[in-house]
């Protein structure tokens, strides 16, 4: 290590690896890839691509017809309201076998579902063998079930109104991964792994899953939307000190809606090497537990984003707030709305918006109820001003919306992990507003006499109500460092950091500027049976007044 103290994360450095070096190890074929706006075809690249192996059927017209058939059957059977979703998916997963060879899996699937509302009761049915008869029967059965449930319940569901929409949309991308030969993708992963290993004592793990989905949603109100998503789900991590659990993510290789251009950034190899060098620097720091006590805590952008995605986002999902999820995923510390909305409960430095911008895994033009998602301010300067809603939960905020002069309607966060899973409320993509004035990581740490710096957290434990949070460096879930007089002096090992959620966020003293922003995309589970929903967040670094540090011993 050439410096007395390690640099803060993402400070400029040079790795000594040139793009030429990278290309020479990645294989001659890669040098033929053009980075630009045109979609590359398999013939141009050479070799077999996944598009040769996936069955693209039925055509969209057929999907529309099936939606219409199901809606018609539901209406004829007596549904007050119905929505139908059909999806056609292709999947490609590429990884590296321990022998060094590529491992590939392709898949294609069709799914559909019908949700029917009768006399204030919902029923949801799904299947995957598509035919006119099957969707018709599914719709009739859903209506019959809903009618039965209506007789059993003592209360009724209601839906907030939504405008009728019709449209077609596709997520933008540059390079179709299903057109890139599988061997080339494996070579790319191998080259990235080799780049990480250029740093002595370091290594990397790389794989990628691609999912292409065409999802058609139709409602009995008359809405009909067709969306095509292309989701990239890379796993990209470099490590140094495997036993000591120093795992650092590779910047820019974050799950998002994108094509193969994700892997074509010209400096990607250098980025991997730099990150491996950084991991090695941190692994080399002396490490020991920290004395138990209360300390100020600085979270880097990724750690802030992870905390937002896993704690604040779910706490603002209206179905959790209303306790619909009490027997499943849990409830919310930001409830009941009457006691929360508009109150200065959290730090004035905290402002969060939610959106479903298309680059994120959760991005969409319309939600699963054909509602256009709104960019929704959720927390403004420490005050909760809204929740994440769908058509079923929005009416619970009627009094608040009317007081604000807003219409009572869903803000477009009806989501499901797949169309054969029930619609629930998701978080979309959360953004914590950065500081408008200059505030780098170094600036945030400057006045810290003795505190904890948390880097690259990809998990935070909580509880059924999201009332507490718990981080640990064990298992590489984050890297903890001691800051003394503004400088990193050591790693902290065998330590847990725990906090009470509302107190913690009340104690947010400062946020970093846009330079410190980092995105995350995490899979979060929701419901019972549970389903995977993407939870995206982008956040600056944050300086918190305090959290409790506890010692973890392996006993």
């Amino acid at each position, binding site marked *: 290590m050439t410096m007395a103290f390690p640099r803060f994360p993402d400070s400029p450095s040079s790795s000594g690896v040139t793009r030429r070096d990278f290309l020479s190890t990645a294989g001659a074929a890669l040098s033929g890839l053009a980075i630009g706006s045109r979609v590359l075809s398999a013939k141009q690249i050479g070799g077999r691509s996944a598009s040769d*192996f996936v069955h693209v059927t039925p055509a969209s017209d057929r999907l529309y017809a099936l939606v219409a058939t199901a809606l018609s059957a539901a209406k004829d059977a007596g549904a007050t309201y119905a929505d139908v979703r059909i999806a056609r998916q292709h999947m490609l997963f590429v990884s590296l076998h321990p022998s060094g060879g590529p491992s590939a899996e*392709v898949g294609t699937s069709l799914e559909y579902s019908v949700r029917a509302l009768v006399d204030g009761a919902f029923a949801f049915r799904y299947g995957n063998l598509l035919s006119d008869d099957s969707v018709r029967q599914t719709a009739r059965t859903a209506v019959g079930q809903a009618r039965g449930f209506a007789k059993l*319940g003592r209360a009724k569901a209601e839906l907030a109104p939504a405008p009728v929409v019709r449209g077609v949309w596709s997520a933008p991308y540059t390079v179709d991964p299903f057109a890139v030969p599988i061997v080339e993708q494996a070579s790319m992963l191998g080259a990235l792994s080799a780049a990480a290993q250029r740093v002595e004592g370091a290594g990397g793990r790389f794989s990628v899953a691609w999912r292409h989905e065409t999802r058609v949603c139709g409602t009995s109100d008359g809405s009909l939307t067709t969306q095509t998503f292309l989701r990239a789900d890379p796993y990209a991590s470099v490590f140094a000190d495997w036993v000591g659990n120093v795992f650092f993510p590779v910047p820019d290789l974050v799950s998002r809606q994108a094509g193969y251009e994700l892997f074509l950034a010209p400096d990607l190899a250098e980025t991997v090497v730099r990150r491996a060098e950084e991991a090695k620097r941190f692994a080399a720091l002396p490490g020991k537990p920290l004395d138990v006590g209360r300390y100020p805590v600085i979270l880097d952008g990724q750690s802030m984003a992870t905390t937002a995605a896993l704690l604040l986002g779910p706490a603002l999902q209206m179905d959790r707030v209303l306790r619909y999820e009490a027997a499943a995923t849990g409830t919310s510390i930001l409830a009941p709305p009457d006691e929360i909305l508009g109150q200065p409960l959290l730090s004035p430095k905290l402002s969060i918006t939610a959106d479903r911008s298309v680059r994120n895994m959760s991005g969409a033009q319309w939600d699963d109820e054909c509602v256009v998602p709104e960019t929704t301010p959720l927390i403004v300067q420490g005050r909760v001003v809204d929740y994440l809603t769908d058509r079923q939960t929005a009416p619970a905020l009627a009094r608040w919306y009317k007081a604000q002069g807003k219409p009572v309607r869903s803000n477009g966060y009806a989501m499901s992990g797949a169309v054969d899973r029930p619609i629930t409320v998701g978080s979309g993509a959360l953004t914590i507003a950065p500081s408008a004035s200059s505030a780098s990581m170094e600036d945030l740490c400057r006045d810290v006499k003795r505190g904890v710096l948390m880097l690259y957290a990809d998990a935070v434990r909580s509880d*059924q109500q999201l009332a507490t949070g718990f981080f640990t460096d064990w298992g590489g879930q984050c890297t903890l460092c001691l800051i003394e007089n503004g400088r990193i002096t050591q790693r902290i090992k065998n330590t847990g950091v725990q906090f009470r959620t509302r107190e913690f966020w009340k104690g947010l003293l400062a946020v970093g500027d846009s330079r410190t922003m980092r995105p995350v995309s995490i899979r979060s589970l929701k419901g019972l049976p549970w389903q995977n929903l993407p939870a995206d967040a982008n956040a600056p670094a944050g300086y918190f007044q305090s959290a409790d540090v506890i010692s*973890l011993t392996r006993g």
Partner: protein
Amino acid sequence: MHADPSSSVVLSRDALLDIGHRLLSLSTADTTCIELQHTARAVTRVSHDRVLTSDSGDTLSILIRTMSGAQLPVRMQINQIDESSLQFAMRALNELTKVQFGAPVDYLRVPDGPQHYLPVSLWHDTTAAAITTSGDTSVPLLIDAFHTSNIPGAGFIGVMARSTLVMQEDGLIAFNQETDSECSVSAWSPDRRASGWSGHAARDWSTVRPGTIAAEAIELAKRGMNPVAVEPGRRTVILSRFAVAQIMRHLSPHFDAYQTNVYASTAFAVRGDTTRVNKVGRQVFDPTVNMSIDPADPLGGFIPFGDVTGDWAAMPTHAVSLVERGVLRDLTYSIYYGLEEGKPFSQNPWALRVEATAETPLLTVDDMIARCDEGIYIHRLSDVAEIDRASGMQTGVTRDGCFLIKGGKIERPVKNFRFIDSPFGMLNRIVAIGKTERTAMGYMEPANDEPAYLWQWPRRPMIVPPLMIRDFNLTALADAV
């Protein structure tokens, strides 16, 4: 092998064989393995005096794995069975298998041909029938219970039936049908400061009593009202079966022989000793504890063969005694590591039986409370996660019933705690152990290394007793209710 019951909720053996034979006839690969799984499920969720949502239907999944020569295998997943889709899938796989991926791999070959599987009884007609009736009969019981008691709550009723068939071109055919069910109820006090939970999981729906479950959850919520804060620290605790199941399911990866012997990453690994790599043969837990896995366990069981997703072939699995009188007797071996080591395949099923030895007296929870001078009764846990594989250390938060015990009696409800402790320590601090039963788990996030194909509800059976443990580490108060 299990004979076909007379049920039409899921595809029969013959129907799945027909699809499989059609695919095999189209394959040109040296080896082809096909797994077909048809699952029918009915879930009803109740909250706020109504059916909140239902979630019912059926799904078919087909996973095909092919390999030619010494090349790495390729896999394809489809879920359509029309002739066009099947032909396209096999044509595509045949092409994909021929693509020369890297250097040849020296693959161990599993034994060819038909296999013999342990007879298991995982199917109940009552459960299959309940796929269409469970909501109608259970929902009124739950809604009425909440209404009558004036305690709000939410309920889950889930019923499942599944057919699984694995077949290969060499004549291997493995078939099984199973049913499973679970009912759970969460209730909370009107002031939202207390909650209760109860649940029951069984392959036979006729043994599940939703009304009783609701009553238990409501009673806990009532008794939990006005909790007080008690100092955290190391305390004697009585863990209900629900809490024990949530902790013990994280033990499964530790029994994996490859992780233990090769990566030395589990708590059963021995590090720094050139004479041994694991603790087999050593006392690892209290002598009153046995642990085992058994596909034919009468309280739960699981499919008696490995699967294409996790193990690449449907080799027979069998019962394994993992821990006897606290001594580690065996680990679980995947197909390939087992072949390397000369050990029989014993799939780590992520299902576990933990029980007292035959000579250990069993105590009920009430007995344990009566014998406790001072301690905490913990009914259930939330967000249990393993935070360190080497020690098995876990963390989580108590919920749904946490009570202070003094002088052999429940004195009062207390606020929840965060705990940090390891079952490898806890199971050496056993004070008393109760009767072992299959235990519902409700909502639960996947454990570290839990295979993705096992994430889905219902989870495989956890069969555990209540435990009284001394010096359980409650590290902090938790505000969560």
